[in-house]
């Protein structure tokens, strides 16, 4: 077993382009030399606006999209070199939670069935053991055994996201890719789900790759931050470094664009004692 602080996930010079044909002029470069490290038990917030490449990066890490070049090293194994069967086995250690819980939960199955499904897919044959696991993980996210016999539509958005989290955690993964897990939820419910994710990380030693556009949420959840723009990582560092000693103008612009925060910054600058506004 590796120690903490050693990177669990290492991405190096990841490149990805889309387009038809072989000629380079029709191709659009989505990712340019994306590199980052994610240490075991920690959270990396991958921050950016739509089209920044953050979701494509997640998709490459999940093995859902093939990269053009680059290295994705998970626990010392380069995922880009794995064969299909090996990747399938690896996939139980890397799970994903999506933005829209409705899209990832088949409405025809009960919640208990939905959470059990990954166990069946990955070959857990003992049905009693499976039920025990399902019960345990559902209990952990705050869904009772009785509730689990109902269908997804009977649950609110926040509860559905809890179910999606349970589904991701039932296989006891090491790495969980969280793709905007709370952006479809109301503020008051967002907090509940985020706090649940934090608690689970502390208890189970999970590592999170957190794809997020909301800077406040990124700040609350992440140890490290990587800011993406136009397929490049423009600024990376610890949460404090990035948000308090912002060096890149794009990060500055993002921070200043947050409603409320923006007005306060303007007011402070007007009062003469505010932080300098370089990069704008």
């Amino acid at each position, binding site marked *: 077993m590796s120690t903490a602080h050693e990177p669990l996930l290492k991405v190096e010079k990841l490149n990805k382009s889309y387009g038809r044909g072989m000629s380079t002029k029709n191709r659009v470069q989505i990712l340019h030399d994306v590199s980052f490290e994610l240490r075991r038990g920690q959270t990396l917030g991958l921050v950016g*606006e739509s089209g920044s490449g953050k979701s494509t990066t997640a998709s490459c890490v999940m093995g859902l999209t093939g990269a053009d070049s680059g290295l994705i090293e998970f626990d010392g194994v380069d995922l880009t070199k794995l064969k299909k069967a090996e990747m399938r086995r690896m996939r139980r250690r890397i799970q994903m939670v999506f933005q829209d819980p409705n899209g990832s939960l088949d409405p025809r199955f009960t919640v208990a069935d939905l959470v059990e499904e990954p166990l069946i897919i990955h070959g857990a044959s003992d049905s009693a053991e499976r039920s025990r696991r399902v019960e345990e993980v559902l209990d952990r996210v705050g869904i009772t055994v009785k509730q689990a016999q109902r269908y997804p539509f009977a649950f609110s958005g926040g509860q559905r996201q809890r179910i999606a989290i349970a589904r991701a955690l039932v296989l006891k993964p090491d790495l969980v890719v969280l793709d905007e897990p709370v952006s479809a939820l109301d503020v*008051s419910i967002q907090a509940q789900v985020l706090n649940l994710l934090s608690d689970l990380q502390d208890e189970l030693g999970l590592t999170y790759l957190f794809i997020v556009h909301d800077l406040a949420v990124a700040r609350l959840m992440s140890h490290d931050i990587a800011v993406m723009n136009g397929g490049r990582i423009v600024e990376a560092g610890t949460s404090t470094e990035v948000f308090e000693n912002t060096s890149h103008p794009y990060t500055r612009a993002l921070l200043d664009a947050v409603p409320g925060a923006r007005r306060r910054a303007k007011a402070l600058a007007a009062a003469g004692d505010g932080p300098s506004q370089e990069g704008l």
Partner: protein
Amino acid sequence: MSHASLPLLSPRPASPDEAPVLAVRGLRTDFEARTGTVHAVRDVTFDVRKGQRLAIVGESGSGKSALAMSLVGLVPPPGRVVGGSISLNGKELVGLDDNGMSQVRGRDIGLVFQDPMAALDPLRTIGSQFVETIRVHQDVSVRTARKMACELLAEVGVNDPARRIADYPHQYSGGMRQRVLIAMAIANDPAVVIADEPTTALDVTTQAQVLDLLAKICDERGNALIMITHNLGIVEELCDSVNVMYAGRFVESTSARSLFETPAHPYSQALLDCVIDPATTRRGAMPAIPGSPPDLSVDEPGCPFAPRCPIGRNEPRCATERPEPRTLSTGAVVRCHFASDITGGEA
């Protein structure tokens, strides 16, 4: 987190003796569902004055969008306004037939919607949709309407409008489409503009530009703005007065300054706690409001926030007796048995 030290917009409510542009009294909107009647808007009362920027803040299911649609008579079936009054410059809108309401929509009340990507007909050019919008209310030629449209597009920041007006919606980015839609909403110079989550679907930098544009438009044209949002940051930035909506009712109506400095209702306080400034916060637990919003088909006897409220959870009175609106010394109108100027100060 304290907001007391922050400089706020100078409140600009017009002198109270000036007649409101829009006066809403006891408005109620129901949706007849198979499982029961959902009371989405319950007894909502407020005034909007000329030049005022009013926020209606709430989470999904609070009834804020149903309220917006009620104001222009576009509540989707099976919903309908079942009571109350909406008076626009003295003219009663509740009970007006569709033709009557059509003359009000766009001309007296303009609307801006949440999702700019879906708000324009993909088969028609921007110009054709714009000209149509102008000519519904103004007796001008297509040529003139097109010229007016170009001027409006320039006003909202569309470059080269004479060329861009011939483009189709898919040739515009999300932020640009929202600019176009804002231009359309103000094309007939309405006295009131209602913006229903106008930036929720946009990226944060685009959002900032669109908010700036809305502020500029209101300043220059002097129309009233009703901003419907879940984002308190937007309220702080743009609005001078606020109504906090919960379970179909306004639970706190006050100036923006008083809401941020002395939130009186426990729900307002909880919402404010959820506002996090990424520049100053540290990693850690997020303040959460426990539980989930109430079922709007049940008309509970007590305060709908009571089960989630730090005070109401333990107070039998909150479960049995519905709080009526009370005016505090700050001028805030609050529906809470326990809100006082003192609790506001503690927040």
